[in-house]
């Protein structure tokens, strides 16, 4: 390794992606784009009643600049600096690149995304017409990011293929629904109802974790396809119980549940509500913004807890389990408890997300927890790159965002045969995207594994060496 770079570095150095060069490139892209966009987009001339006036649309210009910079970053990371496919050079360049690439990821992308996520509701104010839908979409995507991070513990870290993850999402949602509508009024009276979400949240997580362990026990000895089929069956079983146990769950009719409150203050146009308490004009957007921050908090908790767990002995044991179970046992690791904790912790985050989902919808029914949801969450995890948390953010945005995008594609109606809606083609498009993905990036968006501990230098591990797990 020490000699080789000298031979090839002269030609490859220029290609290798360094963070400083990347930042420079992105800043200059942003400046050029803004220079172009300010005259064209930011100032729109409007002709009305004989006068030409200018309408300023800086928000839109900034938004477009953001898109341009983001796309360029994406191209830098995933398209332009791909390692050559074969030969001795490939290992060398990928080695050079991997360092700078991982630095980019850890140093800039994660904090950048966090700042963007925190300020996101502010951006939507530039588009007062969209805001409600955009906020709702953002909440929707964040739920799936959180679910992806939860499932990542089971699939990405421990390498156990779980096709029934939606079961725990359902347990969380029904825990909130049943506790808040049936049991809390019975036990504590109706005064507790505005607080129901905050009390149920930990309970829902615990219940889901318990179910994770209960469902984990029978599948401990299973691997690969067998594990996938049994977890798939468990996912369906929970849904069928919800449909058929009419006296307990109200069956397919579902349950109407109280929506989330601002720490006890409901979002309504009425006295004693959030807007009344703070003395501001009632606006539905407050509800969506609050939802957004609640799910953002939950998702960030998931992110930091799983990130931390990965660096603890238990997380390392999960990854070791994915790499080689027999070697794990030879080192004295109890693989039974290791697998069960992975199931339990994954399920717990699923339960939190389910509880939030119920509080957002104000209604739960078994229809929300069909198999396709499990498949989508798994697709998000796989597409993101197994074990990568940042990759999951991108893939959740790509998959869930593209679903919504299809609703907007009115222009597609011109191309499509009459009577068909673009929305009907969304699964087809996702399928196509999956096939392309499998062809070009079979290990997902992020193909490097970050080591959890290092002595001198943090070097990412190439995805080719990382095992996919036993099932």
């Amino acid at each position, binding site marked *: 390794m020490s000699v080789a770079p000298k031979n090839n570095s002269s030609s490859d150095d220029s290609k290798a992606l360094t963070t400083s060069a990347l930042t420079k490139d992105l800043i200059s892209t942003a400046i050029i784009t803004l220079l172009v966009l300010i005259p064209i987009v930011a100032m729109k001339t409007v002709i009305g009643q004989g006068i030409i006036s200018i309408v300023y649309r800086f928000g839109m210009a900034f938004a477009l600049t953001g898109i341009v910079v983001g796309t360029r970053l994406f191209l830098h990371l995933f398209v332009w600096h791909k390692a050559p496919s074969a030969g001795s050079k490939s290992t060398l360049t990928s080695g050079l690149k991997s360092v700078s690439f991982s630095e980019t990821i850890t140093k800039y992308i994660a904090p950048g995304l966090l700042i963007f996520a925190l300020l996101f509701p502010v951006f939507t104010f530039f588009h007062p017409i969209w805001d409600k839908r955009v906020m709702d979409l953002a909440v929707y995507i964040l739920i799936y990011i959180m679910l992806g991070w939860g499932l990542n513990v089971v699939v990405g870290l421990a390498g156990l293929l779980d096709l029934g993850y939606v079961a725990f999402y359902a347990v969380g949602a029904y825990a909130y629904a049943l506790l808040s509508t049936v049991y809390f009024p019975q036990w504590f009276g109706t005064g507790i109802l505005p607080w129901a979400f905050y009390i149920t949240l930990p309970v829902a997580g615990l219940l889901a974790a318990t179910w994770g362990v209960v469902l984990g026990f029978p599948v401990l000895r299973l691997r690969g396809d067998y594990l996938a089929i049994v977890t798939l069956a468990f996912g369906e079983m929970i849904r069928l119980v919800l449909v058929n146990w009419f006296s307990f769950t109200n069956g397919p009719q579902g349950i109407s549940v109280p929506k989330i409150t601002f720490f006890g203050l409901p979002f309504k146009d009425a006295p004693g509500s959030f807007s009344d308490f703070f003395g501001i004009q009632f606006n539905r957007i407050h509800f969506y913004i609050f939802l957004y921050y609640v799910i953002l908090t939950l998702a960030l908790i998931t992110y930091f*807890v799983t990130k*931390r*767990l990965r660096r*603890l*002995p*238990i997380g*390392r*044991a999960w*990854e*070791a389990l*994915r*790499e*080689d179970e*027999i*070697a*794990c*046992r*030879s*080192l*004295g*690791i*109890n*693989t039974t408890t290791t697998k069960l*904790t992975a199931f339990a912790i994954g399920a717990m985050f699923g339960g939190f997300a389910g509880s939030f989902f119920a509080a957002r919808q104000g209604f739960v029914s078994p229809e929300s927890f069909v198999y396709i949801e499990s498949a989508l969450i798994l697709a998000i995890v796989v597409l993101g790159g197994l074990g990568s948390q940042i990759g999951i953010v991108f893939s959740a945005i790509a998959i869930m965002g593209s679903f919504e995008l299809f609703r907007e594609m009115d222009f597609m109606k011109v191309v499509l045969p009459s009577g068909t809606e673009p929305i009907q083609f969304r699964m087809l498009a996702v399928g196509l995207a999956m096939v392309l993905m499998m062809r070009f990036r079979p290990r997902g968006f992020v193909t490097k*594994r970050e*080591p*959890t*501990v*290092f*002595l*001198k*230098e*943090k*070097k990412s*591990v*190439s995805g080719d*060496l*990382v*095992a996919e797990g036993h099932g």
Partner: protein
Amino acid sequence: MMNWTKDPELQVQHLTMRFGGLTAIGDLSFDAGRKQITALIGPNGAGKTTVFNCITGFYKPTEGMIKLRHPDGKEFLLERMDDFIITQKAKVARTFQNIRLFSGMTLLENLMVAQHNTLMRASGFTIGGIFGSGHFKRAENEAIEKCKYWLNKVNLTERADDAAGDLPYGAQRRLEIARAMCTNPRLLCLDEPAAGLNPRESDELNKLLLSIRDDHNMAILLIEHDMSVVMGISDHIVVLDYGRKIADGTPNEIKNDPAVIRAYLGVEEDENEVAVGSVKVADLVNEGLAVHANVPTRTVPKVSASPKKPVATKTVVKKPAAKKGGRK
């Protein structure tokens, strides 16, 4: 000279392992002494790895007793314990014939995983670790120091942050030994540690194993085909053939044992006497003719030194090598 029977670290008594109708090990008894390197040799399919799998709990023996005796007087009956409990409580560590490293994890991580149980306890079973307890941080630093020590010992400090799968073969073998040592074992079981190593590397391996024995007061149980390693470092050799013990003694005794020679070279029915008399294992070792692992059937190395009398250089009647499927 039989000093391994006085105070043995490991006692194997009447061990029998049957797979259906096949008796892989039949009534095997031997002792492994403290601070000694005990080599388990025998032709391919003799049942050496099966013995290892019984000792480390990967197989449950059909009959027999395997007792591990710690110097402090604690005794463990290994045939009754689960594989991971054996490593955890009885302190037996092992390596594998086909290397089983966590190839997607770095060298340092591999060694950290080996200290899982210690770190787990220090992290308060994860709860203390999540909230960043100082106790856990100290334990983690100690664990890293230990990793550094063993990385240095196996000459891999420079590559500590590389993926284990990126290492060359010989280094992977060394790393696997270091990983096993990080579990704080009393008994180290090495399954063909010299397989695929070049002479210089197996020389280094010898030094490493001697240092583990002498500096860490370890008992080592070794399966090996490389006679230069076996004869060079072991204090005690047990020879297996078709699952039965055919010889047990010091390297010198084994070199001259007629039964061993018969098992390794094979004899024709009517040339029994001749073969036994003329070629010794010692000669084979001197000729550098080690019987290597992974030879699909039992073959006899060509004896280039011309023996005085015609020796049975033909292969023995081939019995099917006992195939033991790996644990699924």
